[in-house]
């Protein structure tokens, strides 16, 4: 395979890299060429961006929150308090 030609696997990996870290000039060119020739990866990129946008917008609402009970908080506070009174810095 010519060095400029990426496989679909590599091309879609680079799309992810692009989103989070950016690409080198050569990688940019490789990806551009690949997308020109490959409608599947072009479709993938668009959909990946849609997924990314949804996650950016409301991942926070959808993530299950973990909560400490009042009792656990009290116990934790007690432990922290004790450790502070014996630590040399207090």
């Amino acid at each position, binding site marked *: 395979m010519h060095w400029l030609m990426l*496989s*679909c*696997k*590599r091309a*879609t*990996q680079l*799309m*992810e*890299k692009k*989103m*989070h*870290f950016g690409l080198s000039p050569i990688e940019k060119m490789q990806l551009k060429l690949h997308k020109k020739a490959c409608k*599947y*990866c072009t*479709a*993938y990129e*668009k*959909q*990946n961006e*849609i*997924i990314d*946008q*949804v*996650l*950016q917008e*409301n*991942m*926070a609402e*959808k*993530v*299950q*929150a*973990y*909560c*400490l009970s009042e009792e*656990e*908080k009290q116990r*934790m*506070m007690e*432990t*922290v*308090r004790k*450790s*502070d*009174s014996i*630590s040399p*810095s*207090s």
Partner: protein
Amino acid sequence: MDREKQEHLEVWMRDYSDTLYTWASYKLNDANLAKDLVQDTFISALQAWERFEGRSSIKTWLTSILNNKIRDHYRKNKNRMFSLDEMAGERPIDDFFDSNGSWKPEHRPQLWGEDETALLDQTAFRDALYNCIDGLSDRFKNVMVGKYLEKKESADLCQELGISATNFWQILHRAKVQLRNCLDSTWFKHAE
């Protein structure tokens, strides 16, 4: 303990303990350990309180102490960040690509309708997406939660997770390929 410290501790516990606990639980995948590290975070924070200069918010400051503890934990306990359990449910990337790295015919991405951006406004689409995320492995989920929940810089996140940058986007790539495929089969049933 003096009264000032006591008051700080009460406020931190009230305002931030659940957030820190949620964050640690996702990263560690272990509720008890998460509790311990949150507790240690408060202990360290009280000791360092005099040195807190208010350059960042309290929440950011506490989170960075916690993240250091998580990093230390991984450094001490294992070189490999992810256990087999955490990887359960992951499909090998070769399920989707053939040996040349081309899409296998049954997994070639097809358009999701005429106007794909309209999907963004559909609650049902978002729900389907989060349902698919629920089905992902803990490792995939944790990386995504880390990335999208706190909108972290990727480089910082890699450091906290104890993985390299390359490893990070390769994991995200695998997670996204599997996620997209799940959406394909649950939301868009192609009329073939």
